[in-house]
């Protein structure tokens, strides 16, 4: 995983709540067997509308998505995170994220930041009025900054440490392989097994 320390970029204000992962990346894109090449499918249905915010020329190259509450609900597809990253987003700000999407994002180095809806509204107002306005997402200081806005955010300290250092979860877990082996020896014999095929 890539390290995330701090990022500054222009924003896309997405005034929608309950943006589900089927909207972020529709199911027919999920047939791909890679982690790349999903940018074309990001918000595919909405991008057919020329008025959609992502189609506005001044939003080109923006890297911080600022969305309404309940972002990332529905399907567990990690492809939603890959699509956002493939497109160029480095961070997503919302007042509420769905649990699975949030977990997926933080495992891929896409920083999902929870801010109060009132602060989200202020960032929307700022970036709608001035598309060139930059938003800084600072993981070291745990703060989001933009013109006239400085909002601190919370993130689990262990998750933050992994992101700041770009650590791989599996390697960390395997350092405790002995604990796993010890646990396995205590598992009752009635626990289900998939093999051999009966």
């Amino acid at each position, binding site marked *: 995983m890539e390290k995330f320390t701090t990022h500054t970029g222009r924003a896309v204000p997405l*005034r*929608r*709540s*309950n943006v*589900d992962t*089927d*909207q972020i990346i*529709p*199911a*027919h894109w*999920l*047939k*791909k*067997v*890679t*982690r790349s090449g999903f940018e074309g499918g990001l918000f595919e*249905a909405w991008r057919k509308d020329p008025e959609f915010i992502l189609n506005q020329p001044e939003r080109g190259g923006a890297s911080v998505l600022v969305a*309404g*509450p*309940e972002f990332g*609900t*529905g*399907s*567990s*597809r*990690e492809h939603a*995170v890959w699509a956002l990253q493939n497109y160029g987003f480095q961070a997503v700000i919302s007042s*509420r994220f*769905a*649990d*699975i999407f949030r*977990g*997926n994002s933080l*495992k*891929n180095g896409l920083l999902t930041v929870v801010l109060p*809806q009132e602060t989200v509204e202020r960032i929307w107002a700022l970036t709608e009025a001035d598309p060139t306005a930059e938003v800084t997402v600072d993981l070291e200081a745990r703060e989001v900054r933009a013109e006239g806005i400085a909002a601190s955010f919370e993130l*689990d*300290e*262990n998750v933050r440490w992994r992101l700041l250092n770009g650590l791989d*979860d*599996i390697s*960390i*877990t*395997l350092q*405790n392989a002995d*604990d*796993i082996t010890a*646990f*396995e020896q205590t*598992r*009752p*014999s*009635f*626990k*289900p*097994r*998939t*093999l051999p*095929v*009966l």
Partner: protein
Amino acid sequence: MGRTLAEKVWDDHVVRRAEGEPDLLYIDLHLLHEVTSPQAFDGLRLAGRTVRRTDLTIATEDHNTPTLDIDKPIADPVSKVQLETLRRNAAEFGVRIHSLGDVEQGVVHVVGPQLGLTQPGTTVVCGDSHTSTHGAFGALAFGIGTSQVEHVLATQTLPLAPFRTMAITVEGELPEGVTAKDLILAIITRIGTGGGQGYVLEYRGSAIRGLSMEARMTICNMSIEAGARAGMIAPDQTTFDYLKGRPHAPQGADWDAAVAYWETLVTDQDAVFDAEVVIDADELTPFVTWGTNPGQGAPLGASVPDPASFEDPSERVAAENALKYMGLEAGTPLREVKVDAVFVGSCTNGRIEDLRAAAAVLDGRRVADGVRMLVVPGSVRVALQAVEEGLDKVFTAAGAEWRHAGCSMCLGMNPDQLAPGERCASTSNRNFEGRQGKGGRTHLVSPQVAAATAVLGRLAAPVDLSSNVAVEV
């Protein structure tokens, strides 16, 4: 202080607990399918890792599989590659797989329980959000992303953030014609799509105790639509009776030891939930969705709501967007909403009891002219059982299409899709924009409502059907 069911199962799986770290939890059962696993196996290969416990891992093909002409090569080349990738990965890493054409093939969340692999007090994961289904057995079961799939393949564990607990207490008895699907849709509308966020829900109370295992699975399946981490129901005699004799259920002395353990898996009297919701089962009626998220639902007897009636500004905007997408006018009685298609199937309502319920309504009746009805069993085993009972004949005699097992039109990854603008009454779990096909419009319903809707061509319950079944069909 006492512990809740969820806390007990969690505690029994902690491999490692350390200050400032998430608990490392052991995973008893890992289910795989073709869509969310290829990148995980790639990750293993890149790092030179193996699958730690192939004996706790099982794969089936479901999301992409066609429901017609399954003996012919898969027409969509991209789907074909994805299915072949799973087969190759399963062979290379030694994972048991049930491919298209195999008698144990089917939707992953139907297959696990019917094999008896899903058991009380286990931890179950799958790269699929509807893994919450397995919570019906008193398992702690949740959907994970592909990075976590790779993590479980490599370590059989997951580091997990703590959860909160919510009791959903349903007292009373579901009235005639009201099903588990109506109940869960009503619960989601009550608490909202984010209401369960961070929580493991425990469904309890006399109405839940009275439900069959399959109905309990329908309830737990849609916990994710309320944003919950998982949904659970304490195991009881109904659970044990369902499991006894299944291929992977414990046998002999193991069975006795297992039941003795399972019987401890109840929330202690003095345990405290972080939140509680109480629902009166007797008050419920058939429930349907009118919008584009599962929390936008109403009793079938109600009308399409006026967005202005929502106090919360983001809910109001969401309702406006939903009505626009759905092509609905506020104030229209839901019973007047006409449909083009009906889908019976999915991990929510694709089991034998669901097919029986739909068939009972359709028996001797016809699907309305201009309405296309698809019946897709959740697994090959369910299909075989339905055929044995003659249900397939009831469906085809009524003019419905009887298909092969798979996820099918729940998400339209295979050719079973709605055309733009088509409206569907669906027993699946998500009414998101475009979920069943680009531009398609979905109303989530129970199998009974689906069948009655198919007959009348508009949203309806069996009670709306004339008692005089047409003889000259």
